[in-house]
């Protein structure tokens, strides 16, 4: 699926007075030759995998392969169960599920890369929490995931979704943009609100570097999934209130690309800068090698 601008999505949506998911679904049908039902079936399957990962990541206290991380999702989930959370229920749950998925991923569990494995917790975290908290229908969640994939496709086409080429803004930033748009879609917002939610989330992820300790998708990645799930919800909430991004979505994506190009290689997944080269980061690396 090659959709290269958010404006194009908005135009198509306006032309046929369709929601974004409908536009994206038609594009995918044209592109893949699959029927709408086949596509939906695959998205449903992806959502099932997402839920299994989020739940397994909380209930088990598995360690990552390297032994560096594990157990934080369970810790935070208990915090919610004890009603100690400062965050509202939806965002607290989103954070718990995102942490859980990130931890499950680090332990080689099966996840859905969305858009990458490193950022796999954000989109499911937001949607699973919203479904539980607001009683959203399964169909609305599937539509939201289709919308998210459309936003992700535009980012992949105009910029990048890989930490190695664009830094973490391209991974967790893109995931947060997808999740923010998805949440708006699930809550019945207009296409304009959906894309503004995406723009707001991405705008506030700009400049985020990829500096994983020991080069592994664990530190800071797992907790970053948790925090960016909350950021996605905040962006969606602003958009739902009618707040728009001053810089239009396509221009924000282009800015992300340009920032990624200007980011030095040591901050793009090479583990040669940032948190990776702090004394603690380096010590952890020595420990596991």
């Amino acid at each position, binding site marked *: 699926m090659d959709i290269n601008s958010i404006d194009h999505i908005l135009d198509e949506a306006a032309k046929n007075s369709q929601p974004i998911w409908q536009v994206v679904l038609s594009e995918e049908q044209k*592109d893949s030759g699959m029927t709408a039902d086949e596509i939906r079936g695959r998205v449903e399957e992806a959502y099932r995998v997402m839920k299994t990962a989020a739940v397994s990541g909380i209930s088990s206290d598995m360690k990552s*392969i390297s032994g560096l991380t594990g157990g934080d999702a369970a810790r935070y989930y208990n915090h919610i169960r004890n009603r100690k959370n400062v965050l509202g229920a939806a965002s607290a749950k989103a954070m718990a599920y995102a942490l859980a998925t990130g931890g499950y991923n*680090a332990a*080689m569990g099966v996840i859905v890369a969305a858009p990458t494995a490193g950022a796999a917790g954000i989109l499911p975290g937001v949607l699973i929490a919203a479904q539980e908290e607001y009683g959203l229908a399964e169909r609305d969640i599937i539509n939201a995931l289709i919308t998210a994939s459309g936003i992700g496709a535009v980012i992949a086409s105009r910029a990048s979704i*890989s930490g190695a080429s664009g830094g973490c803004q391209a991974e967790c930033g893109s995931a947060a943009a997808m999740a923010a748009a998805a949440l708006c879609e699930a809550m019945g917002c207009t296409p304009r609100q959906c894309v503004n939610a995406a723009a707001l989330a991405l705008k506030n992820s700009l400049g985020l570097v990829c500096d994983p300790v020991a080069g*592994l998708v664990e530190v800071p990645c797992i907790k970053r999934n948790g925090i960016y799930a909350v950021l996605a919800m905040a962006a969606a909430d602003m958009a739902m209130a009618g707040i728009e991004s001053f810089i239009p979505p396509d221009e924000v994506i282009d800015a992300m690309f340009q920032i990624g190009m200007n980011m030095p290689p040591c901050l793009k997944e090479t583990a040669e800068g940032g948190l990776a080269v702090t004394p603690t980061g380096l010590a952890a690396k020595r420990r596991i090698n």
Partner: protein
Amino acid sequence: MFDILGPVTVGPSSSHTAGAVRIGLVCRTLLGGEVRRALITFYGSFADTYKGHGTDKAVVGGLLGFDTDNEKIKESLRIAEFRGMVYGIRTAEDIRYHPNTVVIEAAAGDRKVKVKGESTGGGSIRIAGINDFQVDAVCLLDTMVIMHRDTPGILAEMTRVFASNGYNIGNLRLSRAKRDGNAVTVVETDVPVDADTGAQIREIKGVSDVVSIPRF
């Protein structure tokens, strides 16, 4: 769509795990049977971080025929031993290589193959070499790998077979390693090539081997 919302894969990294599984799978497909021996060489970032990313388990899992979403990948090293597959893992440096490169030299029965694969991000891969021939296959379309002698007219003969069976070629690349008369041609088509057409290609004089790699 499912490159953004996917792949469904074992963690922890789409490039260092999912992509690595796929390269192993391609290698297995090229061999067309149970892999008996494999020497796996990691380069660049793969060499630095393969343990923590389980890239070794991923490649071996692919060689065993596990797809990216198979939980058994976690245990693939043990399963390999159980199934009698002998593998070796080593690291090397070559600054000309893509940072996430793995070279697999593998054997199944009397068939041998050497595959150079690059994991280009998000689970996408590029097969950059087969048996020291430079190729370029990203496996997003159905891909056919044809080993043959580099004789005049052989390419025309192949394209004729594709055309007469109604296949539209999306991409075709012939590569020669040295001027020893051997070549590899990689053909990408929009739809999978049926067995009959594959057999017709194999019958062309000078063609020694034909393998179809299904798209991901």
